[in-house]
């Protein structure tokens, strides 16, 4: 027996018969880490006092600008406040901004999407034009315009970010709904004599929900990033609320002497965005039947 290896070209995975094994069987390490991080965020949102080590707003000017240590894991800020505790305390605000902005964007997007896909040709045409017009105001520009009109602040920033994401959601949701509406299972329901209302409530909306939820997880991180950008431009959250974007913007001033004031809130933003994205993707894979 002299079985010789036939070296297969592994560079191109092409055989359609090959089982799709790109993705592992187990939930991946990344997904587990992301989930753990999200659990931490939720804990920090629900019970910040349990997760934090100190009072986030307790000032101690004498302890200002201390680098990370056992007493202050993430160091202290310009007023001697514990950066770790502030990061924890800021979780609720930051997530609230991210979630609210995404919710606003999604709600508008859903409304427009539903109108476009079920409201008949005229509604579809009008919504599509409206979405095109809204697209012509790119993200931050729309946000700035909203801020010009309503003045800066966290609420305006949140609404502005939400509004600027709406056309994207509207387009995706419309596509989703149209695809479902023209799917064979909806046709099968029609053949069974189901009414449009029942088809929408039983088939179309429920099937659109998961992808929309996934979309939302992906959107929250970006919403936080853009809200932070507005904070950086001085148009966002207010002190002493420990919102990550505001902390980061404040910390950037002292970048030369106190890197930890910038790095840790920044890591929280990046980490949250990564975690929600990873989870969103895991959900997508699950929806597609992969692991």
């Amino acid at each position, binding site marked *: 027996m002299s079985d010789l290896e036939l070296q297969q070209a592994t560079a191109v995975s092409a055989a359609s018969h090959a089982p799709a094994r790109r993705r*592992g069987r187990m939930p991946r390490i990344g997904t587990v880490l992301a989930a753990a991080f999200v659990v931490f965020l939720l804990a920090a949102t629900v019970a910040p006092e349990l997760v934090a080590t100190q009072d986030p707003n307790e000032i101690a000017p004498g302890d200002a600008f201390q680098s990370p240590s056992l007493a202050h894991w993430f160091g202290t800020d310009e007023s001697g406040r514990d950066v770790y505790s502030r990061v924890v305390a800021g979780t609720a605000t930051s997530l609230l901004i991210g979630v609210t902005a995404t919710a606003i964007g999604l709600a508008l997007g859903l409304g427009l999407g539903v109108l476009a896909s079920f409201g008949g040709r005229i509604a579809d045409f009008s919504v599509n034009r409206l979405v095109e017009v809204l697209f*012509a*105001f790119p993200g931050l520009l729309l946000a700035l*315009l909203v801020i010009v009109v309503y003045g800066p602040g966290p609420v305006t920033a949140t609404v502005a970010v939400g509004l600027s994401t709406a056309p994207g959601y509207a387009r995706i949701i419309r596509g989703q709904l149209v695809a479902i509406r023209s799917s064979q299972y909806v046709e099968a329901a029609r053949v069974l004599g189901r009414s449009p209302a029942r088809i929408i409530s039983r088939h179309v909306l429920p099937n659109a929900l998961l992808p929309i939820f996934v979309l939302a997880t992906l959107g929250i991180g970006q919403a936080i990033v853009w809200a932070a*950008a507005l904070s950086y*431009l001085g148009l966002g959250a207010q002190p002493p609320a420990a919102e990550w974007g505001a902390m980061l913007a404040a910390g950037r001033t002292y970048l030369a002497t106190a890197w930890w004031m910038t790095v840790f809130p920044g890591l929280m933003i*990046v980490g949250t965005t990564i975690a929600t994205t990873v989870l969103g993707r895991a959900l997508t894979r699950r929806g597609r039947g992969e692991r």
Partner: protein
Amino acid sequence: MTPGSPTDERRSIRGATLRRAGLLVAGAVFVLWAVATLTFFAIRLIPGDPAQAILGGPGSQASQEALDQVRRDYGLDQPLIAQYFAMLGRLLTGDLGVSYALKLPVADLLGAQLGGTLLLAALALMLAWILALGLAIWSTGRGRVASALGEGVEITAAALPHFWLAAVLIAVFSVGLGWLPPVATGTLAGFVLPVVTLAVPLAGFLAQVMRESLLDAMQQPFVVSARARGESALGVRARHTIRHASLPAISLSGWALGWLLSGAVVVETIFAMPGLGRTLLQAVTLRDIPVVTGVVLLVALVYVLMTVLTDLAARIADPRLRQEAGR
């Protein structure tokens, strides 16, 4: 698809393309009109007196006479609807009005700023494309580790806030290594950091899309066909899969440009570059309404043009789109 002679088919495709071009132009004009109208009326919601803004903002101590004079000069005493049509009329002639703060024609002002921002955005878009394509190609078909690594890099890149990334880049490359200037001065070296700052997060997004479509393309039977003809793995990528992977990213370019223009507001501020973003930010701070309106319109115009270009590019890259020209 209708059966027909090749020439018929070609003629009908050309007709459809013309019709499509007509629709695109009409759509573009509509979008611009709508943007102008929305902006005009939205701006009227701004609290405060434009005349006051013209006379040096709210901290000024302008007299009542001066205010009245300005209201007459700028037509602010006209009824709203008359102002609206006057604005539309001016727009048709390319007149965007006069900046409250700089007292210069907005068109001239923005014309001078547009080039820098577009150059920045174009370079960033190109770099993002290169980075994304490189990452997508590198991380696919190389096993699970590379794939996971690629995915990790993409997601992380896409999550980086511009101002944070800029701070890190400046700290490392300007202050630490002293290779690149932290303030863009119009030199080539000065463009490097701003372009990288803008490009990296965008590359993260594009790479996600590209990698997905690259993986899809690599599952297609034509890859096996090509290899069965003796094509090398590299040849398959160069001649087949990369093109397929690029298609969705091409159609994303319109969105990407909008995204870059948003990022430009931050990046231009950090790197002290002249451009639309900074002009807009300053105009927002100064309540310089004509400039805000002008920037919004100009960006809408750029966006609309980009959409048309993207559409054309997608059609060039994907002949299938040319076929179904109808819709």
